[in-house]
């Protein structure tokens, strides 16, 4: 088991290197350079060129990539071309907002999604099932930023119950949580329902019935744990989607998080900011997926055994 974890941890290194490479490579195509950004459009071309040279912008891509990695390993993601502030400290300042948003939505979305998914599978063809599947369909189809704006219209502007922007207290987060959680509810509800329906038809459920087990215990004791195995994977993937979705949700609610930082960076053509923030979000996602994989191995004895043998 520990071997498996080590193997997975080692796999994370090339993944992160590749992720950083792709992001850097794409951002390198941006028609923007630090000299122009810092000195302004009206500066002397020679001065701009000199500054670019000084900042190492003119070095070959590989050199800059290696330098980025080397600095990143030591916790330095460079400085903003726009403000000169350290990207690392900006991220450190903004990450709590994004983390609060993401984790809150994760809890909100997964609890409601999984619960409704189980219920609608157990009561297949009931009104509850119809309601849940329709809800899941709708939440998955309507854009989350639009749902966010609708929530603002109703709860902030209409009823005046909740604030519509900024990151103050819990109240500020309720609407963003609901908005970002919507997508998770949709995908988790559908996955849980499908997986549960498949599990209920398994032979071992029939064995449990033949033992005389009660319907309730069959669901909670046998079906649920088996059905949740694939749901765990989907949980990881949809958390990643949601993490990226925080970009729009933070924009809608003007939450000063990492997502908004990326958007601002793109507008300003501030390459180090965008690169740093994107790499951090992607790294968070990668680590989370690793965590999901290990969790999976712990719940499923078959997978555990496969790695224990080796």
């Amino acid at each position, binding site marked *: 088991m520990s071997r498996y974890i080590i193997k997975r941890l080692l796999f994370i290194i090339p993944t992160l290197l590749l992720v950083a490479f792709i992001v850097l490579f794409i951002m390198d195509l941006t028609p923007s350079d630090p000299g122009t950004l810092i000195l302004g459009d009206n500066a002397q071309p020679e001065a701009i060129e000199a500054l670019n040279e000084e900042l190492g912008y003119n070095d070959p891509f590989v050199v800059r990539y290696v330098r980025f990695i080397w600095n990143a390993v030591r916790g330095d993601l460079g400085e903003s071309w726009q403000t000169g502030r350290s990207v690392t400290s900006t991220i450190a300042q903004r990450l709590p907002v994004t983390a609060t948003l993401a984790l809150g939505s994760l809890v909100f979305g997964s609890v409601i999604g999984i619960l409704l998914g189980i219920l609608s599978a157990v009561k297949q*063809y009931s009104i509850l099932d119809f309601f849940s599947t329709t809800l899941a369909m709708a939440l998955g189809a309507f854009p989350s930023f639009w749902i966010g704006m609708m929530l603002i219209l109703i709860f902030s502007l209409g009823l005046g119950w909740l604030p519509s922007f900024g990151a103050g207290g819990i109240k500020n987060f309720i609407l963003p949580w609901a908005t970002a959680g919507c997508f998770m509810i949709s995908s988790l509800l559908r996955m849980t329902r499908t997986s549960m329906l498949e599990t209920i038809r*398994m*032979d*071992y459920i*029939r*064995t*449990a*019935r*033949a*033992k*005389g*087990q*009660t319907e309730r215990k069959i669901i909670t*004791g*046998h079906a649920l*744990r*088996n059905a949740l*195995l694939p749901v765990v994977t989907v949980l990881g993937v949809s958390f990643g989607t949601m993490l990226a979705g925080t970009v729009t949700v933070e924009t809608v609610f003007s939450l000063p998080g990492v997502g908004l930082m990326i958007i601002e960076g793109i507008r300003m053509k501030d390459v180090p900011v965008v690169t740093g923030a994107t790499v951090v979000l992607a790294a968070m996602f990668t680590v989370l997926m690793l965590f999901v994989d290990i969790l999976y191995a712990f*719940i*499923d*004895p*078959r997978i555990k*055994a496969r790695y224990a043998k080796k």
Partner: protein
Amino acid sequence: MNNTGTEQAILEVRGLHTIYQTDDGVVKAVNGVDFSINERETVGLVGETGAGKTTLALSIMRLLPERTGRIPEGEIIYKGENLLKADKEYMRRIRGANISMIFQDPMNALNPIMSVGDQILESLVIHNEEKRSGEELNKRVDELLELVGISAGRKHEYPHQFSGGMKQRIVIAIALACNPKLIIADEPTTALDVTIQAQVLALINDLQQKLGTSMIMITHDLGIVGKTCDKVAIMYAGEIIEFGTAEDVFNGEKHHPYTVGLFGAIPSLTSEAKRLKPIDGLMPDPTALPEGCKFHPRCPHCTEECKTGEPYLYQKGEAYIKCNLFREEK
């Protein structure tokens, strides 16, 4: 064995009909089945794919798929009680404790993420009427594992760590856990290799002798029937077309043409025959069964009278054959 006085039927099935309501129409899976099983007795239900054997078993257990399966008429009497009229809770207590089942495919019959010991224990906990302590129940799990030939030390292992034959032993242990009166074994060895099949059959036979349980053995293999059964019911298109003691069916003089066909189609290990004698045609479509005797389109002795109306019921003691061939010999 003292058979006298124990000739008490423990389960009686009368006029049972089971249907499935599917999108493609009503599937008539079981069409008027009558039979009974006495204490310590094994009845073999024999037939090919689609004969309705498994449906019959699931009807007795009341485990038909809820949305599609229906039992429009018939009675299943266990201990004087019609199980078809019993409420769900009563039925739940019967299952596992009084009637239990062994399924065909041991690969999927066990919960993959629960240790085998826990799966046996579960049965005991559900039907723990005497309020035995956890320790006692755990001892019983060890006992059951040893009984089916698995060392008790393996009870913490998971199903994937066992071979097919071993898994079937565990399924048997679960079925036996609460000392049921009747076990329904649905093709218990079909998924296993011959030598493992022999082991499992020997085990089942052995335990049945020891524990005095009655058993319904569902199979398509007449060889298995010969090895295990006291009485035999041959099923075709949802009906028992011939019923009798193993002696009647294997060595008797009068047989339903389908029974004759079934025996004739098996290649023999002992005699030399160049050609086999297959039964012509195919199983009828269960959504559109033929009129009259359901075997008539494939029957070599078919007459006009076979095509309409119920075939003649030839009876001799407990044995019976549903065929017009024996009408004149009343």
